[in-house]
């Protein structure tokens, strides 16, 4: 179970995830962002992460690298899956209500009794559009412009 912020998943997030063999992790996150101009934005995200190493020193834990990908979507009425049919071609615009992410994370944890642990995780998410820009025209600053850092606190049962 996690609480988090930013990294393109919303300003305030609550999530549930399951870890297999300490290496594979799948999760679902609900995000919420208050917005002065367009009203509140709700977000629904799914993620997969792969963590090759978990280092331990006494009760301290470190996962230096988690890499993964995810998808996030909103139900905000200003964003759409298909453009609203005002154009001759219904698919004139790409869908605006869903985005895909590539993520990197580094996590520090503390082992608790009964195999439970508490973790602080720092994420960097790169939006699909940033990768598209990078691959389409090799424009390196896309990596900075389309990147969002985030932080989450999670508890492993």
């Amino acid at each position, binding site marked *: 179970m996690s609480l988090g912020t930013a990294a393109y998943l919303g300003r305030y997030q609550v999530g549930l995830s399951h870890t297999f063999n300490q290496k594979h992790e799948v999760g679902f996150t609900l995000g919420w962002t208050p917005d002065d101009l367009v009203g509140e934005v709700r977000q629904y995200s799914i993620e997969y992460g792969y963590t090759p190493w978990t280092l331990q020193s006494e009760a301290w834990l470190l996962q230096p690298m988690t890499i993964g990908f995810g998808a996030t979507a*909103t139900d905000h009425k200003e964003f759409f899956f298909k453009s609203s049919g005002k154009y001759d071609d219904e698919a004139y615009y*790409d869908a605006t209500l869903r985005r895909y992410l590539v993520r990197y994370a580094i996590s520090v944890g503390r082992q608790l009794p009964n195999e439970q642990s508490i973790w602080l995780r720092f994420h*960097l998410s790169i939006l699909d559009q940033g990768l598209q820009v990078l691959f389409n025209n090799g424009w390196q600053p896309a990596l900075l412009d389309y990147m969002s850092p985030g932080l989450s606190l999670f508890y492993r049962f």
Partner: protein
Amino acid sequence: MGLDKKGMMKFGRMITIWVLAALFFLLSGCGVDTPFGSQTKTSVENHNHETIQELVAQGAGKTGLIRIGLLADSHQNYKGLEEAIDRLNTQNLDFVIHLGDFTNIGLNVEFDAFVRTMGQLRHPYVVLIGNHDAIGAGIPMYRKIFGEFNTSFSYAGRKIVLYNSNSLEFQKVEGFDPQWAAQELASATEPTYLFQHVNYDNKTHFTDAESADFEAMMLAAPDLRFALNGHLHAGTQRNLGSIRLATIPRSEGGQYAILELDPAKDSLSFCEGSRCQEVSVGPGSGF
């Protein structure tokens, strides 16, 4: 896996680096929380209004040749936009107008990337809203960052009209106002230059009757010299009576255009890199 003393030190260093990196990224505000909102990294607000105020003051005592750089439909072709900006920076220009579609789907991160890229331009610039910039949260973001959708100003004895022609994207929001354009053109007392994103005769955006009305309004304007648009990506030009109509090419591949307003003759050149070719010759600015 367990760690020995050496491993512990390495572990401690990693934690320190991680904490410093986390603080750096979080404090530097280098990202937005969600791609679906209007939150942006840029602190720029009301850019067009501020720039136009400076231009009006700068143009008050100026006469003679005016050179305007034109960009359009850069979308996510930032490399092409940078190439065009590099060339424009080598030119002697009064200001630059971007004719809209500086994003693909109006995302906040696209607004940020565009503003950051345009920051490399050494000339003052104003930006029209394009149809791609007006979806999602694009309309309120444009209003916050750039300002009014329709505006005009006088520069060195010429009237510059920046008109929002995105009829389809402004059906629920105020900002598409052909009557405003009609008044601006009809009341002009100076040679007038109209800039819009969507061409007035676009079959998707306008009915034949709407296009005909707009055309009649342009022809009735006292001294409309040029009507320029983006949206179609390929550079074209034709005449409507004595009015020159032109589509500015998209900035992919470093394309841009130069509009020269000269008392003897007006001219428009389409450029790619250092190569420019004049594509139309208008009447003299005549003052």
